[in-house]
């Protein structure tokens, strides 16, 4: 190595050192694994590490706030940034398990719009900043030849006469009960009002009764694509990004039905007592900037949480023929009949409905 290059490397190292709070931090970022984590590594982790000189250790988990609670309660916090669902973010914040995030420190949009106005409504919370919008939809496999009309509505999913065969559904009352009510003719705007009443719950279970014998229940996010590819089921509910990934990266011929989709948010949170709070905040600010959110969308079909990112969404990272904007839950063609998951309803009723759902399953 020549003397000049040596000096240059030393200088580059030093500047990274200075930029990163004088000490290079090691940040543990926890997410859901698979194609989703990969999209975050490519769009957030790598550029942030290059810019700051910090390192990121990426870990996978299965959701829920049990681990965060255990770490905070025992005073041994090893996770610095965690990707959680909205209802969990609200709940963990209420229980004092998370650091607060000051919204005014989030980077503004390129045109100067402050972050508070640029983020979509309901995506910024006291302790959490949303990165993506994801959705639960149902899917079928076009490569299997069947004599049927192309399924178009949520009602078709529940119609065993026109579409005989097994269906995959997530073994959880969340989303499943909403789907049942939408299929039973409840307008999306009234789903949670109906589900909040005893008759509404009975109605959802009655609708589910009509397909109970034909359902295969899945629990892990990777299962539905496998069930469908194996021909175990003709339809399955699934998360839209996973389905997109099976189509774009694994050449499956899956088709999503967007009618009655239920969308939700994924948000960054920082467990209280994290040893790298400053670096963690810096990472959250960096990764929720307009450009990074738009970049992530070229790896997986989850919609960015900022309005200013939407026009920047490009094509799939290794196939310019796939325009990512068309595959987002929020794309105009997909968003016609969509329902936002009501975190407050589920925070209140999750345990009760889960007990009833399991009792119903066991009958």
């Amino acid at each position, binding site marked *: 190595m020549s003397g000049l290059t040596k000096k240059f490397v030393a200088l580059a190292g030093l500047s990274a050192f200075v930029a990163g709070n004088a000490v290079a931090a090691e940040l543990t970022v926890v997410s859901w694994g698979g194609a989703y984590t990969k999209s975050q590594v490519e769009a957030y982790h790598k550029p942030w590490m290059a810019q700051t000189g910090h390192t990121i250790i990426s870990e996978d988990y*299965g959701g*829920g*706030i*049990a681990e965060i*609670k255990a770490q905070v309660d025992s005073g041994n916090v090893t996770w610095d940034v965690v990707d959680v669902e909205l209802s969990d973010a609200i*709940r*963990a*914040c*209420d*229980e*004092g398990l998370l650091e607060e995030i000051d919204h005014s420190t989030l980077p503004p949009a390129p045109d100067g719009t402050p972050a508070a106005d640029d983020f979509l409504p309901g995506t910024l919370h006291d302790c959490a900043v949303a990165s993506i919008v994801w959705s639960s939809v149902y899917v079928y496999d076009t490569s299997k030849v069947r004599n049927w009309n192309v399924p178009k509505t949520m009602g078709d999913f529940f119609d065993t006469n026109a579409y005989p065969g*097994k269906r995959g559904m997530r*073994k959880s009352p969340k989303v499943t009960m909403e789907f049942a009510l939408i299929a039973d003719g409840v307008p999306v705007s009234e789903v949670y009002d109906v589900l909040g009443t005893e008759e509404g719950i009975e109605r959802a279970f009655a609708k589910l009764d009509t397909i*109970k014998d034909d*359902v*295969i*229940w899945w*629990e*892990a996010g990777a299962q539905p694509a496998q069930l469908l590819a*194996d*021909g*175990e089921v003709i339809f399955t509910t699934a998360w839209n990004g996973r389905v997109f990934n099976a189509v774009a990266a694994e050449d499956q011929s899956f088709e999503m039905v967007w009618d009655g989709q239920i969308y939700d948010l994924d948000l960054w949170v920082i467990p209280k007592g994290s040893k790298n709070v400053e670096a963690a905040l810096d990472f959250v600010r960096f990764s929720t900037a307009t450009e990074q959110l738009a970049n992530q969308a070229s790896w997986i079909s989850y919609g960015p949480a900022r309005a200013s990112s939407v026009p920047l969404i490009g094509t799939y990272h290794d196939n310019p023929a796939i325009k990512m904007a068309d595959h987002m839950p929020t794309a105009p063609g997909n968003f016609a009949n969509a329902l936002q998951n009501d975190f*407050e309803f589920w*925070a*209140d*009723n*999750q*345990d*009760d*409905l*889960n*007990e*009833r759902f*399991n*009792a*119903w*399953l*066991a*009958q």
Partner: protein
Amino acid sequence: MNATQPITAADGTPLKKKLAQAMFRSKLRAAGLVAPLLAFVLASFIFPIFALMWQGVHNNTFERLMPNLTEELRVWDGLSEPTEEMYTLLVADLRQNRADKTIGRVASRVNQELAGTRSLFTSTARKAAKLEPPYRDALIKTKKKWGEIKVWQAMKLTNQSLTPGFYATSLDAVYTVDQGFIMKEEKRQIYTKLFIRTLMISGSVMLLCLLLGYPVAYLLATLPLKYSNLLMIMVLLPFWTSLLVRTTAWIAILQSQGVVNDILVWVGIAADDSRFSLIYNMTGTIIAMTHILLPFMILPLYSVMKTIPPSYMRAARSLGATPTRAFIKVYVPQTIPGMGAGGLLVFILAIGYYITPALVGGQDGQLISNMIAYHMQKSLNWSLAAALGGILLGGVLILYWAYDRIIGIDNMKLG
């Protein structure tokens, strides 16, 4: 020499005393060697179990975080109209919890008792700072629910830190302020059903393992070494393979487009459009669990059978017994310690299984351990998980006691 004088060692001390000293030293050394293990078992096993069991009957979240209201709730009879005094104290506690960011804990705790109260607490706490007396009217104006007696009864119940409520829930009952314990309505009962199903599935897995494992263990113990070694490897290889790999392999074999169904269709036993459902139900759970737990039955059986001298069977035959009679009357009774050990091992492991049922269980293959995992990881209702676990532990201890009375624990041979 005087016969009454005690025998002494070379240095004049009585031999008995000297011996005791030497023994004490070696005992101390033995205890010293065992001490780390004992400390480890105490710290990592006994203590956590008791700590968790304690959570099943004791939860002081409400009492600890609502210090003003707690005394007043204790003396309230649970039936009369709540007083203005109680509403005032409630607002004071809500304000404090809002400031401390602990309102979520209180809300979750009351929500366990009465579904739908979580948001009542969190949203009221957000507005608590602005409320003005009289607080009863102010609260009811914020949320109508504050006027309902059942919300106050739920608070009174959660205020009682030492509570039978979680065990009642575990047995599908409700603990109430005025009527004591009442059973839940039929369509809401879940835990007792799951306990019974868990026992049934574990029992059938144990019996299947015994039926399948007994001949294999017999072959292992009696075949010449070069064959039995090969057989042993075939038993141990799956034993060393990851649990998840074996479970997913069963999915590939048993699913409706899987190997078994393809063969059945090809042979003509099943029609192509009505294939058998072998997985995602109780059948699949029992098959996969039996396969996974089989080595735990074979190995103890084998170790017992290996010690039975072949001459016993020959003696029985020479005394005129038929081969079947000699097997049943002479061989089988000697293998009972192995059957007991294997049976108990398989049964106890099966009772706590949850990954396999979660993957292949479908709707009727769910076990009680899946609910315990749910309450530990998702709902964070650790007290209910502890109560469910406590009942499971109690059940296992009763079975162990019954086993000891019927077969005798001294007879058990683990290898």
